[in-house]
């Protein structure tokens, strides 16, 4: 098993280097570079100024040197300097990751818990109103563009009924500290988290329902029932434990894709997370930041895959036996 884990780690590392090479190459062959973006932003510059700045960012070097330097730096934990902010990319990511985590984790937890509950209940009573409701929620959540859901919620809960702030993470005009600050952030969190959770909920209710049905139909549950174990015990002790596996796996994978998942919602709500930073970096041609976020995202996926695997082994003894 140790050998297997080691293998997996090595594979993950190779995968990440490949991701770095691909990203770097793609962005390199594209027209335009960060200096042009800065020059534009500055309001123009002379050719000498431009040449000087290119040299400063090493953009005058041959491709192989550039990518070599970059890979070397990444290995030492240095993702380079943002060409827009003139600050280290690792610092920028560290500053923004909290907001994204807060949003995604909240949405994921809400969806996971609510989704599992709905899914399990509707699996137990297949012909009930609740069951049909779950089907409808799942279908609707699958079919609606997440950013549109966000806008509709803004229209409903910020504009028509002005209960919630329209966007941002804090009322930055007020200087709040302590509990007031926490409450303020939570207040801002409701809408974006709700939006994201709506979409996630569709997945989880459907998945846990299907999974639960499969487990309930399996032999060992029948056996358990046959043994005369109480219904609740069968459902919650035996069935749920197994039915939750695919749900956990899926949550892990989805969490790995958190930045991608959050881009649209963060954009709609101007949530200051990594998704908006990534989008802005594309628009500003801030290559080091963009590369850094792409790399970081891939790393998240890899790490989450490894973790999911571990959790899987813990929850399901059958896998361990293999």
């Amino acid at each position, binding site marked *: 098993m140790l050998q297997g884990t080691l293998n997996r780690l090595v594979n993950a590392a190779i995968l990440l280097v490949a991701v770095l090479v691909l990203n770097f190459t793609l962005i390199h062959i594209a*027209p335009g570079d960060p200096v042009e973006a800065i020059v534009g932003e500055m309001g123009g510059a002379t050719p000498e100024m431009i040449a000087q700045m290119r040299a400063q960012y090493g953009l005058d070097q041959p491709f192989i040197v550039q990518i070599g330097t970059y890979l070397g730096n990444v290995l030492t934990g240095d993702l380079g300097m943002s060409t827009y902010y003139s600050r280290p990319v690792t610092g920028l990511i560290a500053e923004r990751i909290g907001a994204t985590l807060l949003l995604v984790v909240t949405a994921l937890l809400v969806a996971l818990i609510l989704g599992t509950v709905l899914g399990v209940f509707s699996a137990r009573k297949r012909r009930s109103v609740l069951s049909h409701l779950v089907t409808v929620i799942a279908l609707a959540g699958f079919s609606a563009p997440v950013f549109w859901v966000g806008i509709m919620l803004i229209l409903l809960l910020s504009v028509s009924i002005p209960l919630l702030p329209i966007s941002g993470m804090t009322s930055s005009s007020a200087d709040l500290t302590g509990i007031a600050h926490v409450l303020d952030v939570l207040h801002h969190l409701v809408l974006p988290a709700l939006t994201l959770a709506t979409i996630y909920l569709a997945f989880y209710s459907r998945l846990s329902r299907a999974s639960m049905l499969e487990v309930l139909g399996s032999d060992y549950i029948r056996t358990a029932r046959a043994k005369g174990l109480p219904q609740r015990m069968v459902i919650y002790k035996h069935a749920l434990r197994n039915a939750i596996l695919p749900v956990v796996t899926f949550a892990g994978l989805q969490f790995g894709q958190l930045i991608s998942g959050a881009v649209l919602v963060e954009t709609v709500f101007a949530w200051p997370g990594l998704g908006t930073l990534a989008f802005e970096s594309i628009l500003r041609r801030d290559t080091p930041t963009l590369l850094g976020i792409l790399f970081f995202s891939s790393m998240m996926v890899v790490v989450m895959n490894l973790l999911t695997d571990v959790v899987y082994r813990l929850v399901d003894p059958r896998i361990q036996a293999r």
Partner: protein
Amino acid sequence: MFAKPAIPFNRIVSAAFAATMATSALADGGTLTGYTSGYRTLNPAVQSGAATGAPGSQIFAGLVLVGKDYEIQPYLADSWTVADDALSVTFNLVDGATFHDGEPITSEDVKFSLEAVKANHPFGKAMFGKITEIDTPDPDTVVVHFSEPVPGFLYSLQPLLMPIIPEHIYGDGQELKTHPRNMENVVGSGPFRVVENNPAERLVLEKNPDFFIEGKPKLDRMVYPLVKDPLTRMLMLEKGDVDYAAFAGIRPTDWPRLERADGVEVTTDGYDAIGYVHYLELNLREKPFSDLAVRKALAHAIDTDFLAKVIFGGKTAAGTGPLHTGNPFYTADVEIYEPDLDLAAKMLDEAGYPVGADGKRFSFVLDVPSWAPQAHVPMAEYIQAQLAKIDIAVELRRAPDFGTWVKRIAAWDYDATMNGSFNYPDPIIGVHRHFDCDNIQNVIWSNTQGYCNPEMDKLLDAAAIETDPAKRMELYAQIQKLETEDLALIYMPQDFSVTVYRDDVKGLPDTPFGALAPFLDVTVGE
């Protein structure tokens, strides 16, 4: 019950915690809340534009200020004398002025700043290219020498374009354009100092207690949260969460909403000196745009009044030529092209561009930059729809990012582009660059369209060194007339630049630089 907005949640929260904050609030001379759309640097010496300029003009002082009727007022220089031959200016600095770190501001810093701006600011050469020498006979005196008279020189010395920056910080040999101290631990010379700079969240400025003008500034704090989303801005303004927003970035259609809001004022004042104009830039090197008759036909086909009145809600003027209607040298006496599609079609027929077998006269790609979509996208969409009516196929190409667009235009590798630029108070800075034969460069916002008319050059050169205002006025009238005859650029509606503020904000600078002037007399509340 929901007709009137409920009390915002944050108000309730802040009320609950007001007790803890009251002690500090009592001594407050007022906090002004605005917003920013983000900036890459706080140092206006290396960056033009409002995003850096608005806070930059508060953080850094300049030698002079520009007053209401474009008169020059003392600032860090308490007096100056222009030599009779107009080839040198001697400045005397105010006594006891210091940077935010306590170091004195000396003539050496002024010299350093002038040279830094000349070398690093995009307009550095245009503004200070004729400076031959800068003398610093003593710490309070600066003498600037020129090779030729520079009539607009003093206008360039206000903080927006010529901030006084500390030599002991920036003179360490590091590249100024990307100097770390442009963003971190910024040491300025102006009325406000930086206390918090988190580009992802907000910028907080605080009164500089050692400012060289006694009793100023009046405000205690200025807070600029980062708000990019126009919708959010609009709601914040409407609710009164923002005290003051220059370059508010709202849509013309938002104006009526704001006018209905209680205690909120909207104004387009304060943008005259900046003079933000938009235009259609045609690459004059290639057919069909090298053909003046084609350009004239396009000018007849594009109804800029329609754009201004319908698309921009009548809140902005249709530009008539290179100068903004608020510029002191502006004239309306130029060549006007009445909107007339039939005439445009006829002109194209006569110019040798009849409708071909494919149903088109010709086709071209119109680039749409990414930096002013609220203006350029509607304009481009309109031009595309309008020219389709006279059988010209326009393909829009939206630049994915800023750099891509800059590269295309600066390399002259384009057919046509939507574009825009600032006039600045003196046309030498913002206007000459587009029409001077010598400025046909691979640099963005130079004469990228490749326009060259010796007659124009003669006029521009004369205007650049003419020190008599009346004669200069006449020269610029001729320049504007000639530009519209040649259609070097086809001017669109001017930018919808507005300031939105709450009516308890008093003492806003009512100068041509408005939003980008230091807030010395501004107060909030009582």
